[in-house]
Every structure is written in structure tokens, then in C-alpha cells.
């Protein structure tokens, strides 16, 4: 079941050749290693472009997003079995 989180997070990512690859994120003072980016897509809110990543980490799947206008990362939701 997905749980909506909607909280700001810190993310360590590689920006290279026009791509963004998240490597880990920190949420509630815990570090989550990104084992796999399972999906990527883009959207828009107003004039801001948002990059979305579905990432697998320690048996759960998280949807995180990056706002290109504000340079902020967000944890949107988490799926836990």
C-alpha cells in the first residue's frame, strides 16, 4: 500500500550529461541507499519542471521528486509490503 509522505528530504545525486541519478537520500535522520531507480518521469507545476524517480531501497519503494526551479527534493510517497 502506498503512503503519502510529502516531506522535503536531502538527496545525494549525480548530475551528468543532462541526467540526474539519485544515489541516496536522508529522511528522518536516516540514510537510504538507492539500490535501483525503477522509473523516471517528468511533470509540471505552474512554470516549474519536476523530475520524478521511483527508487528501491531496503525492501521498499519510494517516489522522490526534484523541482528544477527551486532545486529542492521531496519524498512524495513510500510503498511498504
Amino acid at each position, binding site marked *: *500500500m*502506498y503512503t503519502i509522505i510529502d516531506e522535503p528530504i536531502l538527496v545525494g545525486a549525480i548530475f551528468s550529461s543532462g541526467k540526474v541519478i539519485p544515489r541516496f537520500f536522508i529522511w528522518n535522520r536516516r540514510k537510504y541507499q538507492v539500490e*535501483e531507480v*525503477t*522509473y523516471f*518521469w*517528468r*511533470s*509540471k*507545476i*505552474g*512554470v516549474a519542471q519536476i523530475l*520524478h524517480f*521511483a527508487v*528501491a531501497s531496503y525492501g*521498499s*519503494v519510494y517516489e522522490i521528486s526534484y523541482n528544477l526551479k527551486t532545486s529542492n527534493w521531496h519524498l512524495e510517497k513510500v*510503498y511498504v*509490503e
Partner: protein
Amino acid sequence: MWNDAKAIVHLDMDAYFASIEQLSNPLIRGKPVIVTGKGPRTVIATASYEARKYGIETGMTLIQAERLCPHVMRVVGNPAKYLYTTLKIREALLHFSDRVELYSIDEFFLDITLSQSLFGPPEEMVEKIKNKVREATGLPCSCGLAPSKLIAKLASKMNKPDGLAIIHPEKVADILKDLPIEKLHGIGEKTRKNLSHLGITKASELGHAPLSLLTSHFGVYGYMLKSMGKGIDNSSVPYHWEQGEIKSIGHSYTLPFDTSDPELIKSYILMLCQKVTTRLRREEKSSRTVVLTIRYNDFETFSRQRTVDYLLDTIYEIYHICLKILQRIGKLAKPVRLLGVSVTSLAEESRQLYLLEKLEEEKKLNRAIGEINDKFGEFAIKPASLLLSEEFEHQRAVK
């Protein structure tokens, strides 16, 4: 074989939204998954093939699905995710032909007639197309290859999922011989019933029916029906740059609870008018026809429209027409479950100056509101009467 016949491919993504969600989340792969809207009263947009084994189908309510499969996993749909993927598919298909038509969010037509010198015979090319789409997106699709769009669309359904069906020109008549008429795209339930009253239940019977019989019952549409029965479809796949002309813009909303409250219904209609107006402005279009759709709590659904002889592009103009439609409908027979507002007969945005200062000011104000909402998000500025529907939703949520 193909000779001078066209080679048309219909590509249909398999359980599209559910497949994307399963690809996105390894924990739900191989499990029964449904993709729905947000509220508790939503219906199913797509079911994974695992869920379909339990009899779950598109259009069912959540409650119906959970009765059939109590452990079904529900995912709320994400239109931006699906649209982004559709555009990636389109990009992959443009590798094979510049005649690529986005038919719906999960369907495409391609005309590969002239691509044979680059990619080989159509039979080989369509396999390459399937592989290219999977390579680009990780998703399976089913394809139909045939000499026309009508038959290609029929073919793509034959071997789902991850299937391929090829109907050569000389085989079209065989396929249509015993095909039930409702399998032909464009023949809905009403037309099927009307044709069956004439003793026509198969495509071949439709193709052989006297034209005078068909036109006397269906008018000009009778010509098209006869052609369909013969498998004749001369419609072409446009060049990808030719497509893009939007024909209508609409939004619908399933209310959190059924209601007969006229003021609340008007408030939701106003909300939908604002959404429609926002998109009209983004597309730089105006319209002349407004369509209001109402679905009652027993799922009886109907639409009424009104066409005017001037251009509509402001929220209040469109809302005013909706109110006129509502007035003509009169007292609603049952509580309302869903409302929809759409506009058609689109034209380029009206840039005329109004002689009346008040009208000109209203237009400028609407444009300014729209620009602010574009920047800060939908409904950043909204009419006060929308607060009624918002308060209703808030109170229901709290209860």
C-alpha cells in the same frame, strides 16, 4: 502479400497504467493491481492481467473489484507519469515512420508502407517496432498489422497480451466472414442493436447488405457501415506534425458523495469550468459549444450541449451556458455522482476588442487570473462560490 496495399500497424499497450505501475514498483509485479482515481467512489481505469483473472474489469467500482479479489492492490493513477511514457513511445515509433498517430494515451497507428526499404518487409518491421517499444520503456504491447486502420485495430486485439496478429490483404474477407459486428471499431451498442433488428449480426452480412437498407435506417452513416462490413477504410495515418489539433477540451469529476443539492452541483460545475478555461487559454483556443455531462448515482449518464454563435473563452461565459443547459434539463431525477464539462467547436483564441469597457475588463481579468494560476498552481485564485464545494469536501473528509 502486400504488393500495392498499405501496411498499417495498430499498437495497443497492454494494461497500460497497471503495467507502468508494476514496472515502477517491483513489489507489486506479478500481483493483481488496479489503477483508479483518487476518491473512495472511483472506478477502475486499468486492471493488471493478474487482476483480470479474477474477473476485474475497467469501469468497475472499487467495491466490486474488492469483492472479486479482496487482496487486490490499488494504486491511484498518475496521469503525468503515463503521459510522459506515451511521449517516449511516440519518440520510439518515429524511428520507423513519420506517419505516426497518437490515437489515445495507450494506442498508436503507424503507416509503414514506405518504410520497407529501410526496415524490411512489414512482418519483420512490426516485430522490430514491438522490440523498440520494450527497449525504450520496458513495457509490452500488442500489435496488429493490416492493410487499413480498421482491420489493424481489430488485429491488435486478437493475441493480447504482448501479441502480434498479421492480416494480409487477401485474408481480410475471411476474417470478416463470421466476425460479430460489434467487434468493428465504431459500432457501438446502439448501432449493434439497430443492425440486429435488421437481421445483421456479422460483418460479412453488413458488407453484403443493400445500401438502400442501410441509408434508410442510418442516413449517410449507412455508407460508412457498408464499407466497414467490407473491411474498407480509406482513412490515412497523418504525418506526426499534422496531428495535434485539439478537437475538444473537457474535465469530469466524481463527487465525494452523491448529491441533489443544486447549489453544490453548480459549485462543482463552476470548478470544472475553471479547469476547462485554463486549458483553453493554454491552447490559445476559444469554443462555441459547451457540453454538460451528468451521471446519476445509478450510473445513468447523459450529456446535453448548447452551441452559440459567438466565441467562449472565459469561465463565466462557459459557466453561464452550463447554467442554461441545467435550466433546460429541469429538476434532476436522481442524486448526482459525476459531473463533466467539455467544450468543442474550437477556434483560435478570440483577440477582438470589446466595445463595452466592462466586457473588455472582464476578459483582461480572466487572462490575468489564468496567468497567476499557471505560475502558482491551479485554483491559486478562484471564484468565491468554489468555497462551497471545497467546504463540502472538507466536512465529509473530517466525518
